[in-house]
């Protein structure tokens, strides 16, 4: 979709929301809006697109209490703000919008979280990603390194970049708007997306990308939207395997879940952001046992999180049930960099080749 088309679509969508309220008030009704309930109990697997999306549970917000009315008022101000941005062809970050809201009196945001949440609400109602509202996330995209060639429409013109030859040692920085990237060609067998920068640097330093024609990607913890969109587009465009390599603890499994199945918070965009073909590489609880890795005891919070995952529909597979129950049994967790205990080359010479061939990737 071109930028003009997206702009037109967003303008139409937000005006539709405002018009609906206008008509409600005109006919003497209390303005209201209905939204899907955004909890793990209201996400469903969509067979066609193979991702998790919101179910049909909806909650209705009517302006009949001060709290809900103020919420609607804030939304109206955001819509007004977005309309102005679209008209003037400007953009701002979510944080900037938060500061701009200082002048909105009663409609001003109490915290950044509130404005983020509200923009997500708007995305869901209008079915337009926030890029369409000219709102940029604060988060910077992560880096990618490997034998791929892309073409990016930058503010300084069209640039073609090879993500090994044309970039520095830290790789190519994924821009906020991945829609501006064209995927030219590649020589890659698979992608490894890593949670920590230490592991990303280790694989670059050990030349893992050249040896195995691998694309290395740094997720930077819970991945930003642009990072997830990048993985989604690589998978869609080139159809190469995507492997996710994280720490071996409950929080890291959620990183994998958000890459593969979509995050609960952004389930309305799962089709764009999730990569259903992504596979979990590690660190598996069974690796802690099999490789006898240095480990820490699970904290109470960890155990709680593991139990929560057992009821999360995204983890309702035999593989995950087995791994999570094994971890609860062991009572241990390990970081991916714990492989360094066996020497700096162990992960690239032994663990990854063994695990990747077990997964059938190489």
């Amino acid at each position, binding site marked *: 979709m071109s930028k003009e088309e997206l702009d037109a679509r967003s303008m139409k969508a937000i*005006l539709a929301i*405002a*018009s609906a*309220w*206008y008509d409600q*008030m*005109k006919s*003497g*009704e*209390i*303005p209201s809006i209905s939204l899907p309930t955004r909890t793990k109990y209201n996400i469903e697997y969509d067979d066609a697109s193979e991702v998790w999306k919101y179910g049909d549970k909806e909650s209705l917000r009517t*302006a*009949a*209490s*001060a*709290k*809900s*009315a*103020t919420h*609607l*008022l804030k939304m*109206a*101000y955001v*819509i*007004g703000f977005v*309309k102005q941005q679209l008209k003037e062809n400007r953009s701002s970050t979510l944080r900037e919008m938060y500061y701009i809201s200082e002048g909105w009196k*009663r*409609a001003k945001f109490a915290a950044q979280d509130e404005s983020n949440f509200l923009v997500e609400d708007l995305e869901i109602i209008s079915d337009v990603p926030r890029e369409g509202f000219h709102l940029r996330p604060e988060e910077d995209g992560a880096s990618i390194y490997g034998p791929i060639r892309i073409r990016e429409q930058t503010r300084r013109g069209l640039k073609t970049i090879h993500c090994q030859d044309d970039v520095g040692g830290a790789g190519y920085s994924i821009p906020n708007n991945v829609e501006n990237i064209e995927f030219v060609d590649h020589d890659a067998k698979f992608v490894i997306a890593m949670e920590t920068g230490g592991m990303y640097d280790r694989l670059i330093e050990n030349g893992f990308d050249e040896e195995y024609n691998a694309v290395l990607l740094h997720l930077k913890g819970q991945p930003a939207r642009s990072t997830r969109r990048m993985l989604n587009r690589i998978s869609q465009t080139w159809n190469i395997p995507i492997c996710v390599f994280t720490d071996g603890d409950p929080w890291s499994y959620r990183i994998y879940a958000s890459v593969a199945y979509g995050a609960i918070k952004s389930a309305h965009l799962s089709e764009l952001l999730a990569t259903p073909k992504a596979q979990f590489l590690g660190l598996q609880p069974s690796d802690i046992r099999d490789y006898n890795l240095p480990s820490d005891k699970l904290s109470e919070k960890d155990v709680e999180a593991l139990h929560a995952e057992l009821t999360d529909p995204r983890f309702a597979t035999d593989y995950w049930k087995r791994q999570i129950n094994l971890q609860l049994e062991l009572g241990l967790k390990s970081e991916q960099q714990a492989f360094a205990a066996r020497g700096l080359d162990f992960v690239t010479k032994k663990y990854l080749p063994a695990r990747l061939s077990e997964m059938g990737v190489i």
Partner: protein
Amino acid sequence: MSAKKKLLEYLRYTSVGNPHARFRVELDDETFTFERVSQEVIACPVAIQPHPHGIEFGQLKRMAAASDEKLADFLINGFSRVGKKTAQEMCDRAGLKATVKVNGLPAEELKNLLAAMQEIAVPAPPTTQCLSPIGEDLIRRGLDKEFQMDFVAARTRPSSVYSGHPFVVETAIGYGGRLPPEGNALILRFANRVPLMYQQGACAITECIANVNWKSYNISQQGLPLGPVLILVHVASTNVPFTSESKDAIAGIPEIEKEIVLALQELGRELKTFLSRRDRNKLAEDRARAVCAVIPELAAKVSEIVEKPLVDTSPIEGRLMRKLIAKKWTKDGNVTIEVNNYTGADTELSVYDISADTAAGANMPPAFSTEMDGQYTKVWKVAVPKQTVWRVTYPGKGGGMLDIRGTEDSKKVVVDLDV
């Protein structure tokens, strides 16, 4: 005087326990007056004879020594609820002749007599005239006078008896107002109208209060109830069972404890009703604010976005609330006050507007206006027929406060749109 604060506290509590009395105190050249709330003289308690079940050996010995009666007559005349038949039973049980003179009885035989008096069943003593309860109405008024609270309820339990001593329990609960909003509840303990100031922790009253489950009355609790709560407990008895000679704390007597807990539970239920009604009102007020303040703003913003004429939200207001709605707002250096009568009745009202504005140049001058410390109180007397709007505009800065009088609180909503 170093103990002045405690002393005044004592007097204040005494005034609550004796609301029929007015007293004036001069302390350090300062005069403090505690007014009475009732002009009626309280009924004097009538002395009754001791009850055979509530007597101790020393007292029996003194009474016997001072009497020149025969044993049976001594029992009948000296004790309450003892008749001929009961007296004879006691004599038989003690192994004494009914005709023997009591002042000649040796200690050993008096002991047998005392034991016999405890064993024979005797009806409970009369309780109505020998005690001096404050009364529910006077407790409420006394508390109202000394503590400004949003809610006060009092309960006088039916009188009862423990070990031959008549007693009556009275309790009161106050909530909100000027009570400190946090910390333990304020506890006022009285024994025969005398405030107990010390050893709160050792007192059976405190224990009873802690044993009530306040959470079920929507009051938070950590041992004692917490928050803006006042609890008064008065134990009136012919013999208040103190824990020690200092008379600071009441001992744990099961009969008394049971009465205290029952009275507190009754009042707790009343308090709960008050609190839930108040919360409901709060909810209604919240809704009113939303409709009156936020929805017009939403309408303005939405109309601006869709580039259509400003949508009128008053039908929504009228539909949601069949009330009198007073609004005040400031725009372009002009203050506007508007009263919408969405009720089904014509109403006459006084509109009070207190702010730094004089309202000079108002399109409808106020009925009168007074000044105090730079704040002008302006009053308009208006008649607002049902389903109509009254409006006044004057140049000014707004702020201050707005109120309408002449209608029930539940029928009016006042909103300052500038806030």
